[in-house]
């Protein structure tokens, strides 16, 4: 009978860009239990909705996270638009779709780089981030910002993209698709990479369902669910199928995210072909009344925005349920039985974003 010991993991750890703490109960080198604790970077952004009016709060909403900033802003705007019955122009819907998918590509490339860094493959890490830089440049060309875009507003978008700019972006993305094929070959077929990912951190379909996992973490376990299928923004007009795998290990999660990058490029291509001309925003009057629950598929999974208006310029309540928060129970389950050396990789495979989680 081996003795049990508790090893604290985080909140400061080389693999963690943001602070989360786990108490790992070990038997020798094997994890038997993981007890998570969060609360190191709570900022009180939900409370701020009482101080800022609902139009100004868009800028706060997009600061919930530095990676999915566009989607946080968009999710909040769509929720408010539903409570006020605002129908935004079609062009704005397509612009939201294009920027959302660009965010997804850059988030997944960031994750691939972090994963490569976690198992010590520095050159692969650099390669992922080199490619990601092109997306950030595209964001700067189209929105003026690389991290915070400030293009969402209630009633549409604050900026338009000229058609030639969209065509240029599609051209850049098609070039990137070829480079990505070479890089994904290393991620999916390299012996050293596979040895760190294959057969590590299984989560069964039933466990994923019971523990409420979301996003690529859930789809890697075989659940066919993608919130984009609800048809917000312009997704209702685009053809795509959720990417799933039935294996449920870390390798499957990597595979899913790589295939989602290709899917995002395809969605941008489709949106660029279908985008109509016209205005990008509609004026509106009044204040939000009533409540709405908006679901958005972020790179890390489904995020939920709940808003409740009382007819004044300040909302009664604004609540965000972020994907990382939903994935922590699943993470704790996958950690049980793994080796201590695999813990950093497993934490990364849920693509944790603690700033989102704590808001």
């Amino acid at each position, binding site marked *: 009978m081996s003795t049990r010991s508790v090893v604290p993991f985080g909140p400061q750890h080389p693999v963690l860009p943001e602070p989360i703490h786990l108490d790992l109960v070990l038997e020798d080198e094997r994890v038997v239990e993981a007890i998570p604790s969060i609360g190191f970077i709570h900022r009180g952004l939900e409370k701020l909705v009482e101080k800022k009016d609902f139009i*100004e709060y868009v800028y706060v909403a997009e600061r919930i996270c530095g990676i999915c900033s566009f989607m946080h802003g968009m999710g909040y705007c769509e929720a408010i638009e539903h409570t006020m019955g605002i129908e935004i122009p079609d062009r704005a819907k397509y612009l939201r779709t294009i920027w959302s998918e660009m965010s997804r590509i850059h988030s997944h490339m960031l994750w691939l780089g972090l994963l490569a860094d976690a198992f010590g493959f520095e050159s692969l890490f650099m390669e992922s981030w080199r490619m990601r830089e092109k997306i950030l440049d595209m964001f700067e060309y*189209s929105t*003026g*910002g690389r991290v915070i875009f*400030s293009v969402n507003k209630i009633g549409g978008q604050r900026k338009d993209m000229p058609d030639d700019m969209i065509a240029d972006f599609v051209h850049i993305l098609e070039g990137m698709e070829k480079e990505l094929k070479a890089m994904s070959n290393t991620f999916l077929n390299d012996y050293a990479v596979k040895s760190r990912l294959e057969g590590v951190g299984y989560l069964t379909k039933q466990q994923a369902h019971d523990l409420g996992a979301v996003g690529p973490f859930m789809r890697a376990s075989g659940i066919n669910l993608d919130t984009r299928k609800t048809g917000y923004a312009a997704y209702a007009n685009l053809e795509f199928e959720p990417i799933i795998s039935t294996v449920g290990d870390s390798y499957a999660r990597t595979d899913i995210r790589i295939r989602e990058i290709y899917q995002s490029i395809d969605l941008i291509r489709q949106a660029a072909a279908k985008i109509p001309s016209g205005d990008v925003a509609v004026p509106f009057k009044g204040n939000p009344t009533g409540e709405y629950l908006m679901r958005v598929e972020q790179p890390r999974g489904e995020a939920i925005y709940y808003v409740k208006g009382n007819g004044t310029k300040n909302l009664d309540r604004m609540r965000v349920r972020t994907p990382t928060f939903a994935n922590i129970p699943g993470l704790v389950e996958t950690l049980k039985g793994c080796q201590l050396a695999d813990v950093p990789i497993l934490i990364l495979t849920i693509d944790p974003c603690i700033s989102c989680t704590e808001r």
Partner: protein
Amino acid sequence: MHQLHGKVNLTMSILSFSKTVFHNLFSKPATRNYPQVPRIYPERTRGQIGIKIDDCIFCGICSRKCPTGAIAVVRETKNWSIKRFGCIQCGECVGVCPKKCLTMLQTYTAPNATKTVEEYIQILKPAPGEPPRQTAAAKPAAAPEQTPAQKAAAAADTSKE
């Protein structure tokens, strides 16, 4: 058969390795040699807010629309000021300015140890016949502290007197 398979694998890996080596030898670096090669900002880059103070009518819309309350406008003294480190460069003020005297500049606010406020004061235009006066003035509200060299020079001046 197994040996043959191994040889084929080795040849393939050498081939792909050489391809990578030659690609890296003859391709441009992914990074820029900054600061020797300057960064060229795109047209839409949101750096900081600029103002043509002579065109401003001090209506105060920019101040009311600013989500962080970084802009302050005093109509009586023709004073327009911005907290540079409170501004989030959303560009809301640029969009609503009725005289289009606010612009989004591509340059960023220089780093500073203190959170500066920049004030712009419109000098009244001279009446016909009056001599021309100095026009716009921009000054930081908090006077910057003297550097040690300036302090020493000032002390030397005093001692001479």
